């Protein structure tokens, strides 16, 4: 199998929020990489740090948040070393972002066409309206929207259509990688499917990589090839999606999958009792130890590193490190 080039490499990324009561370690030493054209997923529940990490990838972290350490290599260059001007050039053109609730961030008093035009003219300079219109309408077709959306206002569109406008914006300058943070969370099941379909279509057409961040394991299973599970600011398991669903290694992943309602068995309730620890004062050892049914003494002392247990399947858990030894 030919090795695909890496388009994104994140090394030991740390993002903390500095508050009066101390530093919240939202992202605490996260490493992963994404190949060109790959569908990569990051799954985690609220408060695990995934959205903060998405913002960090675009260098959109604002005070009181701060990138405390680590490196983010995009096409071989550590973007954490670049100045503001260069970062602005890179955003949209090399790496683009569909943030959570993007459809609600569309400017309500501007027509859709103008908003997309903004992205183009900011990066590529002035272009005559006729040229822009043709280009944007073509773009709208690629996301399944009719040409007349060009002249419409956001409030005239449904949720699914607005989200597809956001996808169109994200691919306008044909970036090599798209970061999508919960792109379908407020949408109905059928619309969600249409939007994900669209996202996959455009990604394939562009040959771009997609990093899909979310909490819905169902969507992730349908869309990504490889996936990382995040818990309390750290990655606890990474692997190919099939391997992870058939044979989850980390207790959190196992319990999370078990808690999902299926259409096979009724009255089957297996939630995970307890709560994730406060990230203001994270525990010494493994952050999952207070809820883990397999917890051992060593878990409370120190957290295990990510270890490759099976080919391309990594897990940070003493249960498995023990076996290796």
């Amino acid at each position, binding site marked *: 199998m030919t090795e695909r080039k890496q388009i994104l490499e994140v090394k030991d990324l740390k993002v903390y929020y500095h508050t009066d009561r101390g530093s919240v370690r939202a992202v605490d030493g996260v490493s992963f990489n994404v190949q060109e054209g790959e569908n990569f997923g990051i799954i985690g*529940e*609220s408060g695990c740090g995934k959205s903060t990490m998405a913002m960090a990838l675009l260098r959109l972290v604002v005070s009181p948040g701060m990138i405390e350490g680590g490196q983010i290599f995009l096409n071989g260059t550590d973007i954490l070393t670049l100045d503001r001007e260069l970062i602005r050039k890179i955003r949209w053109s090399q790496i683009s972002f569909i943030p959570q609730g993007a459809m609600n961030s569309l400017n309500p008093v501007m027509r859709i066409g103008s908003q997309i035009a903004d992205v183009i003219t900011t990066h590529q300079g002035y272009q005559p309206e006729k040229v822009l219109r043709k280009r944007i309408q073509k773009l709208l077709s690629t996301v*399944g*929207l*009719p040409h007349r959306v060009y002249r419409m206002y956001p409030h*005239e*569109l*449904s*949720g*699914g*259509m607005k989200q597809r406008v956001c996808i169109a914006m994200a691919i306008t300058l044909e970036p090599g990688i798209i970061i999508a943070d919960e792109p379908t969370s407020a949408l*109905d*099941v*059928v*619309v*969600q*499917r*249409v939007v994900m*379909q669209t996202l996959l279509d455009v990604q394939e057409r562009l040959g771009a990589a997609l990093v899909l961040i979310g*909490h*819905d*394991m*169902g*969507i*992730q*299973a*349908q869309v990504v090839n490889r996936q990382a599970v995040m818990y309390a600011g750290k990655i606890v398991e990474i692997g190919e*999606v*099939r391997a992870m*669903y058939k044979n989850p290694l980390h207790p959190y992943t196992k*319990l*999370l*999958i078990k*808690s*999902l*309602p*299926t*259409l096979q068995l*009724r*009255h*089957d*309730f*297996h*939630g*995970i*009792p307890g*709560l994730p620890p406060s990230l203001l004062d994270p525990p010494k050892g493994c952050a999952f130890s207070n809820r883990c049914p397999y917890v051992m003494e060593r878990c409370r002392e120190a957290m295990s590193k990510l270890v490759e247990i099976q080919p391309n399947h990594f897990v940070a858990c003493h249960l498995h490190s023990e076996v290796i030894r």
Partner: protein
Amino acid sequence: MSVQKEVQTNILNQTQAPLLEVCNLTKVFGSGLLQRGQKVALENFYMSIQGSPPKIISIAGESGSGKTTLARIILGFLLPTQGEIRYQGKDLKMMDQKSWKIFRREVQAVFQDPYEVYNPFYPIDRVFEIVIQKFHLAKNRQESRRITEEALVVVGLRPDEILGKYPHQLSGGQRQRIMLARAFLLKPKLIIADEPVSMIDASMRAIILKIIMDLKDNFGISFLYITHDLSTAFQISDDIIVLYEGLVAESGDAEIVISSPKHPYVQLLVGSIPIPDPDQPWQGRVELPPEEELEKDTLRGCKFYRRCPYKMEICLKNPPPLYNIGADHLAACYLYK
């Protein structure tokens, strides 16, 4: 029917009035000449909840289906355009003070957003205090505290971890459970739960769904569970009514309707549920015609016509009525004429 039989039936009906009956409910939003700018949120909707034995009935649908409008009308927050809501045989619109107070106590609600329902300036204890005071549920502070603690235990929370805290100090799951405890405190007969777990993390949903089932099994409380998530509806419901654009598409036993849906829209809905198994992908592609999305659809017949893989000429003439396709299983589709 002979006169005698009629009288007998009437007596029977009176003593066994359903707990909640929604009759010919229609709600139209917006005014305007020539029906422009009007949205028919619900059309001629009928539903009957017996109350005994307690049941969990799901109202499932997507946005625009009318499910939230239905919840609001049942709770008395919105007036119907036509039709009535009867609680234990009495029309809500014509209730006296006494009956209304009973209704307000016996029919409780839990809403979707566990963040906005709390006043952030007060500890959460206040939500219990207000209710205890208003309905005279306790004679003194000790009793008030005792019944509050009991309610918290019923929903699996530890009173010493919860009482005295402010909303921002608690998680979404804890806040939602507190709302269930508050509803439970009033010993209701029916709880209207509008998307109670959709803003809750996956790992906590199962816990809250189990609480809902326990409240039904152990305390005889019926639930009207309103959701767009068919997987959770499948887990806990006895019966299900699937709404599409203000009309009932299919209704019946939840297990049967969801595992083998008969209405083409419900089939699409069930087929679009993302299964957390990469070996069970979505089958085929789905297209959404922009006219339908933009609500400028002006078709006269079945509202699902544009997307239906089985469309026929008869579908364009008039919206299909509900056909009986099994034991209490109804589907509004000409395929079953």
